[in-house]
């Protein structure tokens, strides 16, 4: 039987994968794209941070750490981000457990509201709190009548508060999907072995959730520390890294490009550490036991039940309050930051008359970016899930990288790299689209990867076996099955793109100002009425697609988040 081995000349075509250059081309293309539009700008930022007149490469960093003017921004960032992250965990985890396990009234509405909080740009929330608690704030003025002095929303405390209330949904979503994947038998086993409810929760359920909690916390930390709009609006003199980078970079007079870049590098380093940790943990816990029977839902009962319902609705109220306030203030006819109880459509008329351009810009920029993203995502996801290339792991990390790069930093990099020929992109809309595509690629790819992993690869083999070549098989079998991910991922990309501020504010050019830019500039110039009307339009534009997506995809919609 052990005949001598006759080595065959390996037929190139016999393997599904090696069959054609197409997927190799996609792989190379993806690398090229990310190298040019992500790595190159980031390296340029790094390079810029090393420039100095004296030739001392470390001068920027030395200056950063020795001058409180700079190092305080780092301290401030950490000082406010870490407690806010911690607080968002303290809200997000119990809320996830309550809403997932207990039959709280209006559960799906609660989930939708929390998702809405996640989607709406944090700086709009910040601005709403200014409307309520700012210098001419509604609540302040109301309470002043009774001689009560409300603490200022401006500064670190208010900033931490707004960060918390706008970022706990990250923790909430990740943890609640983890809770849903726990099988009831695990709890039963613990109960059967004699642990009580609280003990089971602490010794069994909580440890299972720990990796997800950590992942949610890290994600929330990354976005908090990178948030630009919120500290810009309520930070005031309390500067954090993103706002300091921005002001250093746009300030034509005293600005210092080296320092802006050095701060960017430090900010990236912080985010990268968080991302690396998160990916490491996700990798370690990527086993997925089949959930046969999800945890049973319970009825909230007695004191603890009342407490849970109270807690849930309180969080919800505080989350939705900004939207309500903005809604009413958008109809309030007044001048500047003075809001009156005189309601009408004036603000909307002004918006549609003066800045309808911005609305159009937002729509078509987001649409174009989302379309490009989803096409790229489908292709890249296929390479990641089905590919045999050894570069898969690298590509996977590279695609996740934009998650960790603050918009401000990417914009700085883009401006350094693309402000001269042959790659002159600054001052065009292309630079906006490119930055959106790169920044939102992780969302779209993740949605497609999750979907593809559920499609059995033998289905493709069956098609090939019936004589349909691999590439046509991809179009005829894989693509139709990926439609939910294409829609979900596309909508998520669209929605998060249209709410983008931090890189847009640096990259836009007059005629291409978007809604977020206009809201922001109106807030800064105290044109609250206009800002609110635009914010309402923006919120509706993100809410409607989300509702449609939930209609269409049900719970699966959250996969895309």
């Amino acid at each position, binding site marked *: 039987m052990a005949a001598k081995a*006759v080595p065959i000349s390996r037929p190139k075509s016999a393997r599904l994968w090696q069959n054609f250059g197409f997927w190799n081309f996609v792989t190379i293309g993806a690398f090229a794209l990310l190298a040019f539009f992500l790595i190159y700008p980031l390296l340029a930022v790094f390079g810029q941070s090393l420039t100095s007149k004296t030739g001392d490469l470390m001068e920027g960093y030395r200056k950063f750490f020795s001058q409180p003017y700079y190092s305080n921004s780092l301290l401030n960032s950490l000082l406010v981000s870490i407690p806010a992250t911690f607080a968002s965990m303290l809200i997000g985890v119990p809320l996830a457990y309550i809403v997932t396990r207990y039959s709280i009234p209006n559960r799906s509405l609660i989930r939708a509201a929390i998702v809405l909080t996640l989607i709406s740009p944090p700086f709009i929330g910040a601005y709403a709190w200014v409307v309520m608690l700012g210098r001419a704030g509604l609540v302040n003025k109301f309470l002043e009548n009774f001689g009560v002095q409300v603490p200022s929303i401006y500064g670190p405390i208010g900033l931490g508060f707004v960060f918390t209330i706008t970022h706990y949904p990250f923790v909430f979503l990740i943890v609640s999907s983890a809770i849903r994947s726990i099988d009831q038998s695990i709890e039963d086993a613990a109960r059967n072995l004699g642990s009580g409810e609280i003990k089971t929760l602490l010794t069994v359920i909580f440890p299972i959730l720990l990796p997800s909690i950590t992942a949610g916390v890290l994600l929330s930390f990354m976005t908090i520390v990178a948030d630009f709009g919120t500290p810009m609006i309520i930070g005031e003199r309390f500067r954090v890294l993103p706002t300091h980078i921005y002001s250093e970079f746009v300030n034509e007079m005293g600005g210092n490009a080296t320092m802006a870049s050095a701060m960017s590098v430090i900010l990236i380093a912080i985010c990268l550490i968080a991302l690396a940790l998160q990916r490491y943990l996700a990798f370690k816990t990527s086993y997925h036991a089949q959930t046969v029977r999800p945890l049973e839902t319970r009825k909230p009962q007695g004191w603890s039940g009342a407490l849970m319902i109270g807690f849930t609705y309180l969080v919800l109220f505080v989350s939705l309050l900004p939207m309500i306030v903005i809604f009413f203030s958008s109809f309030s006819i007044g001048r500047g930051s003075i809001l009156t109880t005189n309601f009408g459509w004036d603000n909307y008329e002004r918006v549609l008359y003066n800045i309808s351009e911005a609305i159009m810009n937002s729509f078509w920029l987001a649409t174009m970016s989302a379309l490009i993203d989803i096409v790229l995502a489908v292709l890249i996801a296929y390479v990641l899930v089905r590919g045999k290339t050894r570069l898969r792991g690298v590509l996977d990390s590279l695609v996740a990288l934009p998650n960790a790069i603050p918009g401000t930093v990417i914009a700085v990099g883009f401006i350094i790299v693309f402000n001269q020929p042959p790659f002159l992109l600054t001052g065009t809309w292309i630079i906006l689209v490119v930055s959106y595509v790169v920044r939102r690629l992780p969302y779209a790819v993740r949605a497609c990867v999750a979907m593809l992993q559920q499609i*059995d690869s033998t289905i493709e083999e069956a098609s090939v076996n019936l004589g349909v070549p691999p590439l046509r098989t991809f179009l005829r079998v894989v693509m139709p099955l990926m439609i939910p991910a294409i829609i979900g991922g596309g909508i998520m990309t669209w929605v998060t793109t249209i709410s983008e501020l931090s890189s847009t504010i640096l990259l836009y050019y007059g005629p291409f100002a978007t809604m977020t830019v206009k809201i922001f500039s109106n807030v800064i110039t105290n044109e609250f009425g206009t800002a609110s009307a635009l914010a309402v339009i923006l919120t509706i534009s993100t809410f409607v697609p989300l509702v449609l997506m939930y209609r269409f995809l049900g719970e699966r919609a959250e996969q895309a988040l």
Partner: protein
Amino acid sequence: MTQVKIENVQKRYGNVAVLKGVNLVIEPGEFFTLLGPSGCGKTTLLRTIAGFLTQDAGTISFDGECIDPMPAHKRNTGMVFQNYAIFPHLNVFDNVAYGLRNRKFSRQEIADKVANVLKLVRLEGLEKRMPRELSGGQQQRVVLARAMVIEPRVLLMDEPLSNLDAKLRVAMRGDIRAMQRKVGITTIYVTHDQEEALAISDRIAVMDAGQVQQIGKPAEVYVKPANQFVADFVGSTNLLDAKLVKHDATAKRAMFDVGNGIQWQAIMLDAPSAQQYSLAIRPESLTFANSNAHNETLNCLAGQIADASYGGAMIRYQIRLDSGRIMLVQDHNPDQIALKQIGERVQLVCDPTRVLVFEGGARGG
């Protein structure tokens, strides 16, 4: 009808050799089964034939034409997957028509061919159903129809029935065999179920650890297993350690010591080349001696009934020999009035012609 020739096909995954030089010739129109335990490389071989894997060495040819350089989608094999691999977004008609659409057939031809094959698999009237509205057995039929309708040169089936319940499995395998006969297509069928293999195959290749252990008609494989593995895997077998006592070259008989001084005879054609042998005895080859009368020409063993399972037309006993070894006995014509009781002492006899002799000690227990 196509002849499939597999010559010295080898495949390794990293350091693990999964196929260690497989040689098979499958005749045109034959229903050929690859039988073997889990992990022995059946799927690997089948996927290599279909072109989803490339062998490291060896060649595969259809009708003498080497197909190694041919990509999977050009090989024209019809594969039936273990997990169905039905297209979930297409209805029954479109699933079956899928392979035809890619070939140059008119709309009418496609409709006719699909109608014919659906009749063959008895799914007429379900054309518009979506896969999720079908039972497991129906899905399996759709997949079978889908593979057959393209008139492939070879039909490849990888444990097509393993997801069905026992009863349906038996019914479906009859259907598959009948259809295959009607169409006359060369078929390679993979299973780890020896009963299924015996029931439907023209010929069987028993595989173990990436090697073909025996090729033969079902009866040959059962009655004349080539080695201990085949004897043990196809049907059940009692194995006894035996020492050669003497060999009579003219009578082609050998005498063995099976322990405790008990001597057994068996047919042995070749001159002995070793001392240590194992004797394999099918459970139905053992019978109970009526009396204590010792018959010189029969092999005997004494023991005690350890367990009995009544099966109506047949009864299975476990007998603990004095040496402690358990022997299985299958009595196909039991004395229904006086069934043996547990604990009863019995005398087993066996015709020497029904003893299989293998070199080396008995593997396992």
